[in-house]
């Protein structure tokens, strides 16, 4: 029996056992009810109490055993493990059943356990963050022991090829050492993000203005879901579209203008990413524009301004913090976007200001380093985690700044 079957046996066994425990405990509680005395809780709670005493010790022991197995302390054969878990569960059940009598406050106990489970569930989200930070930091530290942090963030040459050979223990004398200068990669991410924002901000902002200030209620109700379809399209689909349809169009257009363009140009993924982000900008801006008090508009219009002047000089400045927050969130989204650039941008790091040349981005390099068959310990794969670390820092910073801006904005009008 392999360990994977264990889960099925455990749950396959626990469910019928749990049902039995529930019935037994319930009828025992009902049986203990005599003339004049009533059960403290509803009978079902006694059943649940027994189920908890059965399942909790069994699962806890299972978790403890799998941890000892994971850390290589000791492991025992699967059938024995299964037997041990059921024995522990059975012992728990026996202990739990002894408590059941008329005066026993089963509901309180059950609710205490349930609340505990809610707390554990809530802590999983914290553990996730911790997991992301730890997994990224742990490997990055290994990476930065081999390559200096300064070289990483200021170097302009990304040539990791020889890193595998070192990782594989090959003789590398006479070869150039691997270089991990990430500047061209960050520059690529920056350029694609900038192109995307140049599309998303004007289109998103003006869409939001049109929907919140000009469109009728019913038109708005129809336009908004249609715009949101753009956000619901998977990024792999956008990537295909950018690579197969848009990129050749751009190359043709460039040739018609007498310019040279690569098929992995920065423009195609940038434009498509911009379109993808439009709904983020528009729906966030829409929310803040609608939140600007009507009194401000009325006051301005009463002074004889046109509607456009009111929007430009009164509504937009009032909504500015929210719009800035939307802008920051959209930027963080663009920086972390992966599939569009993996499919439509290049693999070669290229420090250039020309959007028609092929460039690469942080996310592309992460995917490239982790989807091959390289040894996990080589500096090349670890570089993915170092890039991920920088990505995490940048997006976290953008999120925190934007949430501070939003809080300031809310205080002003609420």
């Amino acid at each position: 029996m392999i360990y994977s079957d264990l889960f099925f046996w455990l749950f396959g066994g626990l469910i019928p056992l749990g049902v039995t425990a529930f019935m037994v405990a319930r009828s025992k509680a009902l049986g203990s009810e005599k003339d004049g005395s009533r059960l403290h809780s509803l009978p079902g709670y006694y059943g649940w109490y027994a189920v908890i005493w059965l399942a909790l010790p069994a699962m806890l022991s299972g978790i403890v055993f799998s941890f000892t197995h994971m850390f290589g302390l000791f492991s025992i054969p699967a059938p024995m493990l299964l037997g041990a878990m059921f024995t522990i569960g059975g012992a728990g059940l026996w202990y739990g059943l002894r408590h059941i009598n008329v005066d026993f406050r089963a509901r309180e106990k059950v609710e205490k356990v349930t609340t505990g489970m809610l707390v554990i569930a809530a802590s999983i989200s914290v553990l996730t963050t911790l997991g992301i930070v730890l997994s990224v930091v742990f490997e990055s530290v290994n990476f930065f022991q081999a390559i200096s942090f300064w070289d990483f963030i200021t170097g302009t040459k990304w040539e990791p090829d020889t890193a595998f050979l070192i990782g594989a223990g090959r003789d590398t004398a006479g070869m150039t050492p691997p270089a991990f200068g990430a500047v061209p990669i960050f520059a690529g991410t920056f350029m694609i993000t900038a192109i995307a924002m140049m599309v998303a901000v004007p289109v998103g902002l003006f869409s939001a203005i049109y929907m919140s200030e000009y469109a009728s209620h019913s038109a708005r109700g129809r336009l908004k879901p249609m715009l949101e379809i753009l956000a619901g399209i998977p990024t792999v689909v956008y990537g295909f579209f950018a690579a197969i349809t848009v990129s050749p169009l751009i190359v043709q257009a460039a040739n018609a203008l007498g310019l040279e363009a690569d098929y992995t140009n920065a423009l195609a993924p940038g434009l498509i990413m911009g379109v993808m982000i439009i709904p983020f900008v528009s729906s966030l801006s829409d929310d803040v524009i609608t939140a600007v008090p009507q009194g401000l508009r009325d006051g301005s219009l009463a002074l004889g301004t046109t509607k456009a002047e009111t929007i430009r000089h009164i509504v937009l400045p009032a909504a500015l913090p929210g719009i800035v927050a939307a802008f920051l969130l959209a930027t963080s989204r663009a920086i972390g976007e992966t599939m569009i650039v993996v499919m439509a941008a290049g693999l070669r790091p290229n420090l250039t200001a020309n959007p028609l040349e092929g460039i690469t981005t942080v996310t592309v390099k992460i995917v490239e380093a982790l989807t091959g068959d390289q040894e996990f310990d080589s500096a090349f794969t670890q570089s993915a985690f170092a890039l991920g670390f920088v990505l995490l820092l940048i997006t976290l910073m953008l999120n925190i700044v934007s949430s501070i801006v939003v809080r300031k904005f809310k205080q002003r009008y609420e």
Partner: protein
Amino acid sequence: MSQHSFQPDARKRKRDRADKRFKLYGFAAITFALAFLVFFFVDIIGKGLPAFQQAEIQVEVHYNEATMDNYNRGVDREYKTLVSKTWLRLIPNQMRDHPELVGQDRVEWVLAENRVDQFLKGNEGHRLKPKYQKVVNQMFEEGKVRLVFNSGFFSKGDSKLPENAGILASAIGSILVLLLTMLFAVPIGVMTAIYLEEFAPDNKLTQIIEVNINNLAAIPSILYGLLGLAIFINFMGVPRSSALVGGLTLALMTLPVIIIATRAALRAVPDSIREAAYGLGASSLQVVWHHVLPLAMPGILTGSIIGLAQAMGETAPLLIVGMMAYIPEAPGSIFEATTVLPAQIYTWSSESLRAFEERTAAGIMVLLAVLLTLNAVAVKFRNRSENTW
């Protein structure tokens, strides 16, 4: 009353023009976005629609000893390159399963090679040699070539040969991964939301959890892939490429979406409901379980469906945990190597054969159809919940 009609001066006219222009900008922005949407769908459907048809050719199949030894003898020499290799390869198996076929020569409609398929559909870059083009044209006149509905696209797994490649394996993989995601993310997400909204004391810890969830929702999905690789695969030893690791990774990614939506749904339940239940002597858990949760259910379902739809279209973290492998068969368990629909689209899109491009687009059409349906269902639930109060 005097009949003074207001004559706008030059300055006012200029301002009015600016006013009109401004409105036009807004209109143009919306039009741009919607025009893109139309262009996008027309392009994808135009590319993908041909893939729902597949060429077949009518040839004489020789079921005999020679074919048993060398499947290439199954059809006459001139047709050998026109029929799909995957079909030829299966002839010996078929003879073993149906011994009564041996010794017969039967005229059958069989799967055509992808170059024939592309040539028939009139795609440029079909790469069919002129000498075969002539054969196919002649067969077409004799009615020995036809395009039929491509049922293999829905009933087969991935293949290196485009005419034999289908989405079944990846669709089953997607369903499996999504089920696991749902199993992990929905209960934990709803429980977290219940705790934060109904039970959590207002202290530092709660605030940290809240800020943390908002940050998690904005972390790029690829970082969840790094987490899955480092924690689930390298640390916990979950098999790489398996549905389990994919489901766990996507569950963590979906968690914040579900938590945020569930909290909003719980907050929308009026306090009077809670107070009435407390007044009748219910405990705080009974209030939540018997009264608040059922009322918040439509909102919770909407959030969960939207989160799962997002997870279903997600690719980047799954590439990192190794779910882009070549998987021709549907997985038998959650520990086996699996691929999912978006990953299948990604692998097909990097194939160079023209025939794969149309299959990629067809796969995209299937994925988009499922996702749009899911979102429509979610919106329906939301509208129903808004009617309650």
